[in-house]
């Protein structure tokens, strides 16, 4: 088969261009390596460029939530080029390394954090067959790579030799490491239901999206994804009003930009992972297999479906950021270790046992059984949390009362306010 421009363009539109190239040049290892390199470049470039749009979107949506207009000067009345201008500004800033800093750790951290954020995308299925590589341990690989960002944060905080940075780094380690536990455990549930760790096969198993089968697991994953990416209400690691900016206080110019880039890329990745594991990824009532004439248009439609799902989740991320205040560090850790982790452990047990009992039944029976199991666990957990909160509130009130009595007793003055 020889090269044909029309066929090539056609395969480009239907996103089967790699298959076409394999047909033309053969399936040799050399061709594979070239295709892999092109794949890496495409995925990485996509991640870096989409961030420009994401930052604009975030600023615009947050502005609307806070009753402002947001960027509206650079690049037309919607401020579309605002981020481009910001990037250009960052590029022309002086490159400073503080005198007291550990030079290696300080300069290495921005690189490794972006590396970790990019590497996760290798197993993200964008459309049927459009995936970096369909590893058979896909989800496991994601967890392994995402842990690297914790090391980068610690490198940044420790290397800066700045007390605020160190405090931010330690907070981030406590937070990210804690929330990784419910995240890993809640990821077990889609794996259990799909009987596979490969992202493609998890999507293939979702004749009923897992958010209907296991809504509680989806909720726990969503909360821990918020914490893992360090976004409000869990943005303690960079809390501007407490520790200036946490681990990246000493960074300036593009090195600072890299931390932001990594944050946005990994947040988008978490939305994509949520869409893949719980919303059925690129699947939408068989739309992804559509063929019109000799054009396999399905892949393109699948890509669009995936993007719609991913950006819906991303919008919820922004929405939460614009709505909720920051939690306290003890609240953050208590909520994780005393609520999320026990609930997730119980949930795994319930899902596993129910799945063994109803495994042979049809898809709808399984769905209803799992849904009821999830619902019961969720309601019991909520009730327990409500009771604990009530007890805590009573203790706090009692403490305030005693303190007030102690304060007012010696002076013999009664304050009638409150």
């Amino acid at each position, binding site marked *: 088969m020889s090269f044909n421009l029309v066929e090539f363009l056609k395969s480009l539109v239907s996103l089967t261009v790699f298959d076409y190239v394999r047909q033309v040049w053969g399936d040799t290892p050399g061709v*594979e*390596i070239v295709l*892999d*390199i092109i794949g*890496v470049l495409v*995925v*990485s470039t996509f991640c870096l460029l989409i961030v420009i749009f994401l930052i604009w979107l975030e600023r615009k949506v947050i502005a609307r939530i806070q009753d402002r207009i947001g960027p509206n000067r650079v690049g037309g009345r919607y401020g579309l080029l605002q981020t481009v201008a910001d990037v250009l500004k*960052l*590029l022309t800033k*002086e*490159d*400073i*390394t*503080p005198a*007291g800093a550990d030079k290696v750790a300080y300069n290495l951290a*921005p*690189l490794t*954090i972006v*590396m970790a954020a*990019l*590497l996760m995308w*290798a197993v993200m299925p964008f459309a049927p067959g459009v995936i*970096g*590589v369909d*590893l*058979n341990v896909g989800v*496991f690989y994601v967890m392994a790579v995402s842990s690297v960002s914790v090391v980068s944060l610690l490198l940044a905080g420790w290397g*800066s*030799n*700045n*007390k605020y*940075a*160190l405090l931010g780094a*330690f907070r981030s*380690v*406590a937070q990210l*490491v804690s929330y990784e*536990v419910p995240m*890993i*455990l809640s990821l*077990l549930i889609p*794996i*259990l239901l799909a*009987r596979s*760790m490969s992202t493609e096969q998890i999507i293939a198993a979702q004749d009923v999206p897992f958010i209907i089968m296991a809504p509680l697991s989806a909720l726990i994953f969503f909360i821990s994804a918020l914490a893992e990416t360090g976004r409000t209400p869990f943005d303690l690691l960079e809390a501007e009003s407490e520790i200036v900016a946490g681990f990246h206080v*000493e960074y300036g*110019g*593009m*090195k600072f930009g*890299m931390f932001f880039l990594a944050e946005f890329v990994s947040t988008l990745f978490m939305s994509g992972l949520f869409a893949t594991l719980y919303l059925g990824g690129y699947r939408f009532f068989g739309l992804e297999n559509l063929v019109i004439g000799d054009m396999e248009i399905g892949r393109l439609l699948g890509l669009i479906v995936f993007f719609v799902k991913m950006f819906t989740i991303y919008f919820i991320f922004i929405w939460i950021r614009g709505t909720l205040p920051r939690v306290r560090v*003890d609240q953050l*850790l208590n909520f994780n*270790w005393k609520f999320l982790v*026990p609930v997730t*452990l119980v949930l*795994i*047990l319930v899902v*596993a*046992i129910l799945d*063994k009992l109803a495994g042979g039944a049809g898809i709808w029976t399984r769905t209803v059984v799992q849904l009821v199991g999830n619902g019961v666990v969720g309601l019991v957990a909520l009730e327990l949390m409500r009771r604990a909160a009530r007890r805590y509130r009573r203790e706090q009130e009692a403490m305030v009362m005693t303190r007030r009595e102690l304060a007012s007793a010696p002076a013999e003055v009664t304050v009638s306010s409150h």
Partner: protein
Amino acid sequence: MLTDWQFIALFVVLSPIFPAMPVIINHLLGPKKPNPIKQQTYECGIETVGDSWVQFKVQYYIYALVFVIFDIEAVFLFPIAAAYDQLGLFAVGAAVLFIFLLGDGLAYAWGRGVLEWV
């Protein structure tokens, strides 16, 4: 199988280029006028007192320790979940016992008051 990891290997090799490129461009484009005051540690505007590489609150490390236990044990749960179809009742019972052990570890840490933030 091995060709799958070829992509990851290439990705690991190529991915440092993407963050390194803007940092290097920044280094070339930006002005270079270092002076001692500019390179001081930025804390509150006051001169920094002492090093920040000090002994730190042990609480953070305890959380990290609890995490390590959970993380390692959760790793064992992944293959069980992926191969759930091929497991007999005995294996499922073992997995359930394993999760109880995990829960026991958490209960121990909780009971010892390790999870209280002070």
